[in-house]
């Protein structure tokens, strides 16, 4: 195997202000009739990245990908790939290959012919072509299936043929449209790691479109969350999850308990929020860019809330009347690795709390119809102003 190339995940070029992006999307808008599928999107993607475009259906992520491949022309804005403006460049002249959601394998060709298709267009000498095809089939572990037709393959095998075919021309940029969408859960998890391994081995820049947040989290160096044709947030998986910038992102990625509140104390080192929605004061141990009396939202992930039978002692620095709340366990979902508690608060609202099942068959676990105290640290939640 070749030396592991320096990949974007190690160097994080997006954190360096002067780094030159490989793909530069500037104010791109795509309208179908009056409807803007993609609305004024700007995005920089760096060499060697595995960038995930994450969004629900109709969020414009696929349209953006199709514009990169050249199947759609932007209504406005520019796309540059490797310093070259792509306006008016047809798909067959772009240094880009795409792996289609449906795989789009040619049904009348064998696995081998499918993989060789792009290479033949480059008029490669036959010996070199055969060597490349063999190499690619080895990469995706399909050496024994050379002469099969696509309809004689399983879903996972077809997916790998599609990947081999897309990689055949050694593109600088590979676009993947829901690459794992058609696979079942088990196979998907295995393939995820394989995909990352191949990407790191070859050092190709990947842009992956997906609606599956788990897939995006495990694959990506960075994620671009899309909503209604616009980029809602760009960031590394941990940033997206732990520091969402809006209610949409907090809700879309993972699950979050969201409560509306009003700022009562706005200090440089802490903020206090009064929330009738929650029924308690929230103490946030860092400054927030907001004004007193401003309405904002506070989101907390279910796993960041502690549940105890007795009222916990106040943490140092946190006022005794904040960040703690009485509740009643109304429902429990046991998922094996963790348990989800549906806690009814005193004001009738619900809070979702999860707890890892670290102890095997814990007899002392909190059960149905118990009165509990929910508490959290000053840094656990996110304060959202939009």
């Amino acid at each position, binding site marked *: 195997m070749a030396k592991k190339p320096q990949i974007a995940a190690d160097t994080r070029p997006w954190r360096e202000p002067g780094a030159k992006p490989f793909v530069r999307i500037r104010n791109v808008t795509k309208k179908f009739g009056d409807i803007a599928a993609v609305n004024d999107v700007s995005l920089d993607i760096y060499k060697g990245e595995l960038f995930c475009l994450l969004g629900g259906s109709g969020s414009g992520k696929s349209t953006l990908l199709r514009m990169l491949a050249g199947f759609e022309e932007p209504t406005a804005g520019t796309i540059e790939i490797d310093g070259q403006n792509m306006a008016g460049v047809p798909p067959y002249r772009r240094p880009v290959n*795409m792996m289609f959601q449906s795989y789009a394998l040619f049904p009348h060709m064998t696995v081998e012919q499918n993989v060789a298709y792009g290479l033949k267009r480059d008029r490669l000498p036959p010996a070199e072509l055969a060597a490349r095809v063999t190499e690619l089939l080895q990469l995706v572990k399909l050496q024994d299936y050379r002469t099969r037709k696509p309809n004689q393959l399983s879903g996972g095998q077809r997916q790998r043929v599609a990947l081999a075919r897309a990689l055949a021309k050694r593109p600088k940029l590979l676009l993947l449209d829901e690459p794992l969408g058609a696979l079942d859960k088990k196979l998907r998890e295995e393939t995820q790691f394989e995909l990352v391994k191949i990407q790191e081995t070859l050092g190709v820049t990947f842009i992956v479109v997906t609606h599956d947040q788990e897939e995006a989290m495990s694959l990506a160096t960075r994620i671009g969350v899309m909503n209604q044709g616009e980029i809602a947030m760009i960031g590394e998986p941990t940033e997206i999850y732990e520091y969402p910038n809006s209610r949409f992102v907090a809700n879309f990625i993972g699950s979050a308990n969201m409560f509306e509140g009003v700022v009562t104390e706005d200090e440089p080192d802490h903020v206090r929020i009064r929330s009738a929605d929650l029924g308690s004061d929230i103490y946030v141990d860092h400054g927030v860019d907001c004004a007193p009396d401003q309405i904002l939202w506070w989101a907390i992930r279910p796993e960041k809330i502690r549940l105890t039978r007795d009222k916990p002692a106040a943490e140092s620095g946190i006022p005794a009347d904040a960040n703690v709340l009485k509740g009643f366990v109304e429902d429990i979902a046991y998922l094996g690795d963790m348990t989800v508690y549906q806690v009814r608060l005193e004001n009738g609202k619900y809070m979702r709390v999860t707890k890892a099942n670290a102890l095997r068959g814990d007899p002392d676990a909190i059960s149905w119809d118990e009165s509990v105290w929910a508490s959290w640290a000053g840094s656990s939640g996110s304060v959202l102003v939009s």
Partner: protein
Amino acid sequence: MTATALPAAAPRRPWTLLRRWLAAVGLSGRALVIAAPALWLTLFFLIPLGIVLQVSLSESAIAIPPYLPLITSELGTVQMTLHLSNFIRLFQDKLYILAYLNSIKIAAISTIFALLIGYPIAYFIARSSDRWRNVLLMLIILPFWSSFLLRVYAWIGFLKNEGVINNFLEWTGLIHAPIPMIQTDFAVYVGIVYTYLPFMILPLYTNLVKLDESLLEASADLGARPIRTFLSITLPLSIPGIVAGSMLVFIPAIGEFVIPSLLGGPGTLMIGRVLFDEFFSNRDWPMASALAFAMLLVVVVPIMVMQSAQSAVVTRK
């Protein structure tokens, strides 16, 4: 077992009795479904074919009907005489062989032209937007709402020496004497291609409309220009449509009678016309039957060749 409980509840339905009665004779619903078209084919194809074969093997005579019976009984002996002379004459008389060859030639060339004209039309319809697609398909089918004979007659008006085309060309000054078009092979080609074009377009359309557009995109994405994509992806995947369309044009074109008689000249030798002449002018029913039977063979062979080609394509996929 529950089977014993069933008959008690079953007779409530009126057809249960019928079904049980049929089952007693060994007939199931499935057998009946298959039997219906089989009965139809037997009554209206196999039996008439048998009669044609029988007539073709008998001797012509001036009588009503104008042939002698195959089986004669005389003095207690039953005698069957098979006259193969008609079939032998098919090979001896150059007229028949020429007519067959010419029919195949005209049908083949017409099929190729219908394909060359029909393919782009079918492709265009399949690629047009949903809204236009139905309108365009309607326009393809629309001519069928008028009489076939009328449409062929209309072509006479177009092609004749003082017809629309010649008049127009003379008016523009491109020609000074009319181009003879009517009563030529050219007119027959025009007539056949025009008449059978929808039969080429419709199966091609149904094939092309199913073509997954992402395959074309994948091809472009892998560096193929549009022409390469057409030759490597669209064309091979549309072979079943091409075969079906060609069969639907070629087979009826071989036996075509109306178009060569109305548009063709005396030199346009086609088997349909020869058949007609044998039957109605010569009143030689046995010869006409032999011709008809031989034509069937001529048509069946290409069908079988094409069908095996098509099944080969299907299994290759």
